[in-house]
């Protein structure tokens, strides 16, 4: 390799003249710099060190619980100058597997994408299949879908609150978040049979009807949910350190948000009232009454507060679902072997992180021809490249946590 070395030193593989210096071959490569010359414009721009800068690798295993993400940080002292996220450590080839599986099997593949909000991952896939099959979902099934997904949204936001505090260093709120999460997970386990990867939505409806166990747990929980969540939030909302650290951090303005294709609470915290439940209504949301919390500032605190407000709106929606729940079947009548018409369908839902979408191409056989999954965490992770530079490392982690990425969805 005769290309110019990336950072001004002799190439890593060049033998050193100094006999005291030995390359630790057995230990492998520890440098975050890739061992080949830069291939793209951005790579050469990034892997050139300025004066006093250094590379630090936040390796795939690090305590921030978002999953396996590797970020190469270019630091000037403690301040982040630039960063290069490296993905793919959880890439499981879901889209390829879906092409080789029946339509019903793809639902199980879609679950572990964003494992906290599994029902939201299944929903666009199922909706796209229903569009291809021209099947109409019974109203009771739609209401149950909305009910369970709003519960999932509360679960996801409770975990977000916990992780937000955890990344800032607070170890207590995550325990409260996990209490909420455990309760809701047990509730959903009595409904769907699973605590985490629910596999509950089916093409044409849902898997099982509401049962007594679920309703009693839900009733119990709803009666104390508001006060319980309020109590959990007093730990953080009135905590001066938390608020002062997050205020003004990672400001994402409207134009940048649209440029980075950001959706969900992240863009609602920047002043854009874009919620696909209102902006492109699906399911029974036109019949439900809820607000879209929006904030103007666009900083981490705004993103946090938007999600807190969304929990309250979700409680409202669940309440309405319970009151308006119609009777009827929970599953449309479909043949067991599904062969949709050849065609394409796109379906999107508003999940706790943003727009979850599925784009399905069917060729008339019983396996999808192309199953494309659009995941919001993947898109939002690009924004860290825009928001993080200029902050200290600790604040940079807060910025990333406030965008709420889940690596299962990022890597598919």
């Amino acid at each position, binding site marked *: 390799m005769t290309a110019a070395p990336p950072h001004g030193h002799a190439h890593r593989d060049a033998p050193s003249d100094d006999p005291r210096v030995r390359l630790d071959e057995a230990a492998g490569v520890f440098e975050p710099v890739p061992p080949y010359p830069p291939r793209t414009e951005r790579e050469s721009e990034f892997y050139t060190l300025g004066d006093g800068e250094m590379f630090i690798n936040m390796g795939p295993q690090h305590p921030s619980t978002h999953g396996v993400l590797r970020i190469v940080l270019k630091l000037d002292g403690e301040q982040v100058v630039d960063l290069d996220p490296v993905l793919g450590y959880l890439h499981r080839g879901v889209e*390829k597997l879906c092409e080789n599986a029946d339509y019903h099997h793809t639902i199980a*593949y879609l679950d572990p994408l964003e494992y906290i909000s599994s029902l939201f991952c299944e929903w666009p896939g199922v909706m796209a299949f229903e569009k291809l099959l021209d099947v109409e979902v019974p109203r009771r099934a739609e209401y149950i879908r909305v009910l369970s997904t709003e519960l999932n949204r509360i679960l996801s936001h409770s975990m977000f609150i916990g992780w937000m505090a955890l990344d800032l260093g607070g170890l207590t709120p995550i325990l409260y978040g996990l209490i909420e999460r455990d309760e809701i997970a047990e509730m959903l386990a009595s409904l769907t049979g699973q605590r985490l990867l629910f596999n509950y939505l089916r093409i044409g409806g849902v898997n099982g009807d509401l049962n007594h166990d679920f309703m009693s747990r839900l009733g119990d929980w709803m009666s104390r949910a508001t006060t319980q969540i309020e109590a959990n939030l007093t730990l953080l909302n009135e905590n001066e350190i938390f608020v002062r650290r997050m205020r003004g951090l990672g400001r994402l303005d409207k134009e940048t948000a649209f440029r980075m294709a950001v959706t969900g609470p992240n863009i609602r915290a920047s002043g854009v009232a874009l919620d696909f439940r209102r902006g492109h209504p699906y399911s029974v949301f036109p019949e439900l009454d809820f607000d879209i919390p929006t904030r103007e500032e666009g900083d981490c605190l705004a993103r946090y507060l938007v999600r807190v407000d969304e929990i309250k709106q979700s409680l409202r929606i669940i309440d309405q679902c319970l009151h308006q729940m119609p009777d009827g079947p929970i599953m449309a009548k479909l043949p067991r072997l599904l062969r949709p018409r050849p065609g394409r369908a796109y379906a999107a839902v508003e999940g706790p992180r943003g727009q979850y979408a599925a784009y399905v191409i069917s060729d008339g056989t019983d396996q999808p021809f192309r199953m494309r999954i659009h995941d919001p965490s993947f898109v939002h992770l690009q924004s860290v490249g825009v928001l993080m530079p200029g902050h200290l490392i600790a604040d940079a982690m807060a910025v990333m946590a406030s965008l709420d990425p889940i690596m299962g969805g990022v890597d598919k």
Partner: protein
Amino acid sequence: MGVRGGSTAGLGVGPSDATQKPSDSAGNNASNANPGLILRDTAVAEPIVVANTLWRSTDPNAYVSSPEPDVTHLREVEASGIGRRDDARWSGALEVIPTKADYVLDLIRANSLWPLLSGLACCAMEMMSSATSRNDMDRWGMFPFRASPRQADVLIVAGTLTTKMAGPLVRLWEQMPEPKWCVAMGDCTCSGGRYKRSYATIEGIDRVMPVDVYVPGCPPRPEGLIYGMMKLQQLVKDRRGHWPERAIGPTVPEDV
């Protein structure tokens, strides 16, 4: 709506004639390509079947009917001694009788196993859940989830191991000082799980590192993980997890 003859606008899927012929080049027949719209009738299409020209099994019984295979029952195979033993008991000439000090040390280790934060995917959620308020792993001393491998005893691999992550994970394992144990949590780490057919995952972490306890489930309930950790404690206490002799790789013989 772009309707022609009752079908939607062509996808360009597959050759335009109904007969399928196996392709001798990779991919579908490019020679038949119709660069414009391809008209399809609304009958159900034939599946795209590409005959296998890449690999054929050399086993003469692979594709033809043949008498019953002679290896049937796992117990018979174990008794015949073909494979290696997988109950982690050391056998051989150098049986070392553990002393009282070793016994006490093992008891101490068992009651304060410090796991490494190695949550990769969904099982990490259940691992976190088993470590916190409702299902508290701190009762058995496993509270501090160390961030650094140098300070950890147990590597609980929670989540799918992909080929890209295999290198860093094995490096983490090698960085952990002995005595160390490994728990494969979740179906993906035990055997590949629902991603067994994927091009980017490792079918079970026992292909790359020795595993002491397998906790199946997708994801296993927190109680299940706690049960697995208690089994690990048992292993540590009874010195059955004599770690230098653990095998890497599936200990079930290949013919089974």
